């Protein structure tokens, strides 16, 4: 019963558990944010300390929520685009169980201080091995599905998904190679090769691939340009991976490596512009759909944040801007804009579309879904804006060479606003969890079935 062979069961379990981890991860994040307002809130209990919670938060949202939701959505998209059953549903279900155990163990380890200490690679070795086995098995399942496909031509989403499942296991392996001991700075170089590529070759590629599938599906319009989408794919493939060193641009690592990172980071403007041009031109003439098509609204809000992040990103990587904003909260603001603003919103849209189709029933409540949108959207805007402002205050503090304690008091209200924005988002996502849970349990829908076209199974069909 556990290892079900039912069509889309793996996709379903991945998505359902991902939503659970989302709320867990956000709770951890919110706890951390509150501790900036009330630093003694941990009352001296080790696992509650901000610095223990932070890696747990990052790893839960990155591997628990975002990766699992992305995988779940990919496991739905791949069979629909190739018109065959998933190659090995059982294996995918097995990975889902494995992965959930890994996340649970991961959180427990991290809050108790069993951390490798490298950003994004904190999970201890045994969990790394489990995650890697999961990734490789999923790659195998997805590649085999595509090889047995009934549709000759590969739609662009498949390119992205296939790319991600090729790159990620390699990147993950390199990032967590604890058995090779490297000297301090070499260790940092490899750490950031990994730290950045998990975003570039995994979250971005899967996220953009998902958006390429969702936007035409949800708006009912064909993709504007296939050749442009391929240009975007190839430029990501060529330009993304060497950029990691821009995280340590001012550390004493070799200059040529930094130069390489800056040049390629700036070149990333190209894929971003091609991807967004394609999205927005596809929407041309149907923007009115945003009014009553909630999943589409989620995806396009994500696209808007993608525009922000990815204009910020390349400029941030240039030496003159990095000089100013490095080390400040501006940077986590940017990271949240990418992972939370963009890819999480893509995933929300996709889940609102996919889940009713997998479960074969309406979403429990359209009202809750709308509240979810507004809480996360407004919460995120506050959150992101405040991060940026804090970053600028800190930047000027560092730049003037004043003691931290001289200007850190000035940040006090902003830590509060940040926690407030976070609390709004957290609340929105608790609503989301309730909504998903009730849908899964088959509760009777609260709203008339045809109110939100994309979320109702009957009108659009599978």
């Amino acid at each position: 019963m556990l290892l079900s062979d039912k069509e889309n069961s793996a996709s379903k379990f991945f998505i359902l558990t991902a939503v659970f981890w989302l709320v867990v991860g956000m709770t951890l994040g919110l706890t951390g944010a509150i501790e900036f307002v009330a630093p003694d809130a941990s009352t001296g209990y080790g696992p509650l300390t901000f610095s223990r919670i932070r890696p747990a938060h990052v790893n839960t949202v990155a591997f628990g929520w975002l990766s699992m939701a992305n995988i779940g959505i990919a496991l739905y998209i791949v069979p629909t685009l190739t018109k065959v059953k998933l190659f090995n549903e059982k294996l995918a279900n097995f990975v889902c169980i494995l992965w959930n155990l890994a996340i649970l163990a991961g959180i427990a380890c991290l809050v108790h201080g069993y951390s490798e200490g490298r950003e994004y690679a904190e999970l201890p070795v045994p969990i790394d091995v489990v995650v890697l086995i999961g990734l490789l098995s999923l790659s195998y399942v997805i590649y085999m599905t595509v090889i047995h496909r009934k549709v000759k031509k590969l739609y662009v989403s498949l390119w992205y998904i296939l790319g991600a499942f090729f790159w990620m296991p390699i990147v993950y392996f390199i990032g967590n190679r604890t058995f090779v001991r490297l000297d301090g700075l070499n260790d940092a170089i490899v750490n950031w090769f990994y730290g950045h590529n998990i975003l570039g070759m995994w979250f971005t590629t899967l996220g953009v691939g998902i958006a390429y599938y969702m936007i035409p599906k949800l708006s009912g319009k064909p993709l504007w340009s296939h050749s442009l989408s391929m240009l975007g794919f190839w430029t990501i493939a060529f330009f993304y991976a060497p950029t990691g060193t821009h995280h340590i641009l001012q550390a004493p690592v070799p200059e040529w490596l930094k130069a390489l990172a800056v040049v390629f980071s700036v070149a990333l403007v190209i894929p971003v512009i091609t991807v967004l041009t394609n999205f927005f031109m596809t929407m041309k003439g149907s923007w009115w759909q945003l009014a009553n098509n909630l999943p589409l609204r989620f995806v396009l809000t994500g696209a808007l944040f993608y525009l922000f992040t990815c204009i910020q990103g390349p400029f941030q990587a240039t030496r003159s801007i990095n000089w100013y904003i490095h080390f400040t909260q501006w940077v986590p603001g940017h990271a949240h804009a990418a992972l939370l603003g963009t890819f999480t919103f893509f995933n929300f849209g996709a889940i609102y579309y996919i889940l009713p189709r997998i479960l074969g029933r309406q979403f429990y409540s359209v009202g809750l879904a709308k509240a979810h949108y507004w809480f996360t959207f407004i919460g995120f805007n506050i959150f992101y804006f405040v991060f940026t402002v804090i970053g600028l205050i800190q930047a000027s503090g560092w730049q003037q060479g004043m003691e931290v304690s001289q200007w850190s008091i000035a940040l006090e209200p902003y830590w509060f606003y940040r926690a407030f924005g976070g609390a709004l988002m957290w609340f929105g996502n608790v609503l989301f969890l309730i909504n998903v849970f009730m849908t899964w349990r088959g509760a009777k829908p609260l709203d008339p079935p045809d109110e939100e076209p994309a979320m109702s199974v009957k009108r659009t069909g599978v």
Partner: protein
Amino acid sequence: MNKNYILPGFVILVSFSLIIFTTVLLPHFIFHPEPSEYAVEYTELEAKGRDIYRREGCVYCHSQFVRLQDRGFGPLVQAGDYVYDTPNLLGTIRTGPDLSNEGGKHPDAWHKAHFINPRTITPGSIMPPFVHLKEDDMEALIAYVQSLGKKRLKKYDRIYRPDEYVAKLEKRTVDVNSSAAANAGRGIFQQNCATCHGTHGLGNGPNAIALAKKPANFSRPFYKDYDDVTWFWRVSEGVPGTRMPQWRKKLTDEQMWYLVAFLKTLPRVNEVYPHSYETLEPDKWLEQLKASEAELNSEPKAMLIETKGPPPMAGGGH
């Protein structure tokens, strides 16, 4: 498999291998800085402390590299400083200050009190309390923090108590903690010192403009650590190489003790809470924090000596 997809697959494979070669393997082959003078080969205790630093996640708030534009964190770091630092703890966020040259900036007891509760040392700090550290872990962590930068910014060396000055304590007739003494000292200060050190001891008296080596600014935080004897010694002996006179040639011991009483009352940037850090106890930190907060709020914070009438003019209008 469709032949059309063999070429793209090949291109992806080759391009990604190339990227891994240039950004992962190549630095590993050709980038091997020699250990610099400041690369720390950690002792067993320090290495343990480093593990605790990593375990407690200090790296999420503290960086360990000084950039060109940073001031106050010591000299720019070199590639060779990091040879023994595995895993790297460079950090990407600075919520607190950079720690690459933290060693020697503060005494051990300061660090201990600060880790038990940062807010008793730096009011308004958002650093979490690390009371949950066991005694030996705390010791190791402090040893590690003190090893950073090999004490190249050692400051508390200046808190020096020459024996002949310690001996003077016995003959002291002035109660340096009384406000009467501080008031007396204030008068002497305005007459003799304000021209250089400024009426509020900020180092900005009118003569300061003309001096190449500027007079000391007594609001700087590290004067928090000066004790009576150190103050007395500094005033008495002057500062060689600067225009700070040897006051023992002009003032009596009694007058200098009055000055010490006054200098002690000058507000420091980040005034320490009234409870001194030596008495902070891990299991009572919360109560102690509350007690000192209450104490602090009940006392006027800034200039403890009240001035009647308009503030004295700079340059001895008193």
